[in-house]
């Protein structure tokens, strides 16, 4: 076969070429939010073999997180989310370099938090913070994969500097639908996986269908529809 991948990455092949795997290994990705979306995103990045992860969250686990947050267990209630994320990544793939930041994301801290970062994934649970995260990323020339969930519904997309997709998509409606719908386990897992798919494409240089667009997911109707924001 002539392919020299470590056994832990052999089942990534050929979906991911040897060059793709090397690119992932050289990449640094920041995940902002280590809750419902973030836990699943972090798990997949660790297994994929992303070289370095910067994990950001100022929160600690409580009982209401257990219904959906992959990293929350009955044993770690009260623990900081980034600490739990660190333990999980180290247990899954000790080759991944980690920087954990147990603070809330703030637009002014973008430069400090995102040092050496190639791509940012938004796993926040606040619309206003998501908009300010996009501004911070674009100021630093970084692409952002954004995602949101609410009950049976979710959305995600990819915003490069100048696209301002998040600002356009969340122009109105400050109060997220999730305040009413709650968030069962399925939507965060599905939307997180789709976000990782687009993140990987950015990192390995494949076409990114959700750039200047977003995917609207309706799990009640099983509708997956892409809307363009050209």
């Amino acid at each position: 076969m002539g392919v020299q991948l470590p056994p832990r990455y052999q089942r990534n092949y050929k979906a991911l070429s040897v060059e793709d795997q090397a690119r992932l290994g050289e990449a640094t990705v920041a995940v902002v939010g280590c809750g419902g979306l973030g836990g699943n995103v972090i798990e997949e990045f660790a297994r994929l073999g992303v070289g370095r992860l910067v994990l950001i969250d100022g929160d600690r686990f409580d009982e209401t997180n257990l219904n959906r947050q992959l990293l929350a267990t009955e044993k770690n209630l009260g623990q900081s989310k980034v600490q739990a994320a660190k333990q999980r990544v180290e247990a899954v793939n000790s080759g991944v370099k980690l920087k954990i930041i147990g603070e809330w994301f703030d637009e002014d801290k973008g430069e400090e938090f995102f040092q050496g970062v190639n791509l940012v994934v938004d796993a926040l649970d606040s619309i206003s913070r998501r908009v300010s995260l996009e501004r911070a990323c674009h100021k630093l020339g970084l692409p952002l994969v954004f995602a949101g969930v609410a009950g049976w519904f979710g959305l995600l997309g990819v915003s490069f500097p100048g696209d301002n997709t998040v600002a356009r998509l969340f122009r109105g409606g400050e109060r997220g639908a999730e305040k009413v719908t709650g968030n069962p386990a399925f939507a965060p897992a599905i939307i997180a996986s789709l976000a990782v798919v687009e993140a990987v494409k950015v990192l390995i240089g494949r076409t990114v269908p959700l750039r200047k667009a977003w995917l609207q997911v309706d799990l009640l109707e099983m509708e997956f529809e892409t809307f363009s924001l050209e």
Partner: protein
Amino acid sequence: MQVNVKLFATLRDGRFKQEKMELGDSSKVFDVLEKCNLPLEEVAISMVNGRDVTNDHQLQDGDTLSLFPPVGGG
């Protein structure tokens, strides 16, 4: 004039998925929100024929208006 109104995600609750709506001439997106009993804070983005518009955008006969709620959870 007639406008095709499409609602997404939670906006469908107690309303509809898609409906052809009879509107007065020079009706705006606002007027549809009012007719659908949709408060402004429940709509994140309004698209007319695939382009995002503000709520004072004037609708034309045959337009398709798609309305989406803010989906912000993580």
